């Protein structure tokens, strides 16, 4: 018996059209990959090989230029994320697809606890329950309790990254996209995060991730997809009559 992947990317390409510079910049070309429930697929490749572009294309922060991104949703339907309507994408982001980037963007007045719990509020979980879970994961990530009540705006890079991870990991999405989640963490915290990612795998979360350190890839990845920089890095497109 073969298991269907949660996510199947076929022939994904992304090219930026920069009008002002009159240039086409390809960032990913012909990427194919599968992500399965309870497994982690790691994207590797040198800087400029379009790893982040693949994640952003799946999350639709970038509009894919071509290819198919077949996502099998909880209700069994398959959605092509490259073409799905905006409302459908926003709904999947709220309910099923999580993305932890390298950066945390927060409102100046929101407490850390609330920042972490917000995705759960959005899913309709009660505030008390959501806060409870938020405190639980912040504790697991060893973020000092005295920081929970204040905004992460003034936190150090590593502290912010822990808040960011707590927020992304807490909602237990069906598909989780991770862009260098351990980049600014010390070795102890990195260990904690590896543990948490392993827990999510055990709970059946399908994960597509980029890691800075090859040893993290080795420890977490069930399969590895290697990307190489797209050829013909830039080309002028036809001069428009202007």
């Amino acid at each position, binding site marked *: 018996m073969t298991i269907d992947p949660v996510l199947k990317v076929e022939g994904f390409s992304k090219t*930026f*059209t*920069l*009008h*002002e510079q009159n240039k086409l910049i390809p960032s990913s070309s012909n990427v194919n990959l599968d992500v399965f429930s309870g497994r982690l697929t790691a994207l590797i490749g040198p800087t400029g090989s379009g790893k982040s572009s693949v994640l*952003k294309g799946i999350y*639709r*922060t*970038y*509009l894919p230029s071509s290819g198919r991104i077949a996502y099998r949703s909880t209700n069994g339907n398959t959605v092509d994320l490259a073409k799905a309507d*905006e*409302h459908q*994408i*926003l*709904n999947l982001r709220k309910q099923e697809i999580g993305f932890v980037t390298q950066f945390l*963007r927060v*409102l*100046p*007045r*929101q407490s850390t606890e609330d920042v972490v719990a917000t995705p759960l*509020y959005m899913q309709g979980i009660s505030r008390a329950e959501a806060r409870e879970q938020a405190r639980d994961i912040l504790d697991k990530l060893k973020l000092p309790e005295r920081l929970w009540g204040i905004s992460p705006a003034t936190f150090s890079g590593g502290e912010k990254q822990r808040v960011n991870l707590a927020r992304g990991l807490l909602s237990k999405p069906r598909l989780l996209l991770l862009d260098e989640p351990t980049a600014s963490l010390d070795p102890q915290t990195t260990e904690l995060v590896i543990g948490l990612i392993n827990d999510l795998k055990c709970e059946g979360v399908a994960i597509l991730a980029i890691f800075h350190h090859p040893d993290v890839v080795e420890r977490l990845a069930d399969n590895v997809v290697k990307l190489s920089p797209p050829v013909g890095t830039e080309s002028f497109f036809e001069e428009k009559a202007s």
Partner: protein
Amino acid sequence: MDKVLEVSHLSKVFGKGCVNCFEHTGPEHNTNICPYCGSIVAAHDVSFDLYKGEILGIMGESGSGKSTAVKNLFFDQEPSSGKAVFYDGDKQYDLFALNAAQKRHLRNHRFGMVYQNPVLGLNFNVSAGGNIAERLLMSNLSNYQVIRDRAMELLKRTEVLTERMDELPKNFSGGMQQRVQIAKALAINPPLLFLDEVTTGLDLSVQAAILDLILEIRQEMDTAMIIVTHDLGVIRLLASRTIVMKYGRVIEAGITDQILEDPQHAYTQRLVASAL
């Protein structure tokens, strides 16, 4: 998901208009003034929808038609053509086909509006509390104490000092006036709220507080909102989807982070690239 609003092909022309107006204006002609008849095409063929609890951003420079769209929906102006349907529970209203009484009903009971200029949204001859009471009286509340309590609650919610609720809003700072305006707009718990450049001209700390407040309100009340702004930061923080306008036309529409990180139109690319 519940749809709250569906706008299709909204157009607004100031002036007598002619057959050439639409063909010879717009971003590709770099003007919204018709070269044949001199009419101003403030908005043309604007379409979008809005769902419950969603914040839609309308972004563009001055004169792009972003406020026009909202003013037409709030009945401050009459559109030249187009259709807009407001879905309210099991009722639906064809906005541009309503009579004056029906329009008044929606303005007073179902819509909220916060203007850039508090003079437009507030009655400066009436106290802050009185401004809110006006709105509550329209929705059939009549007990003085009930109204006063509700006004107090709204002012607390919007962080206006309640000791000052009996003062005239003209004595308030700009940020405070804006908060009273928001309190007034929220008084009737409207399912649809329009926000037109609400933070423009306020100092940064006040801006942040008002943006926070707007997000909190959306989370608490599931209000659908349309926020008109030229400020990318406001769009980034508040809107889940954004439409970009130029010379009266929608040139781009999409999920906000996509518009900001992967803008497709030359104008949006320039706009995003020039943001601080």
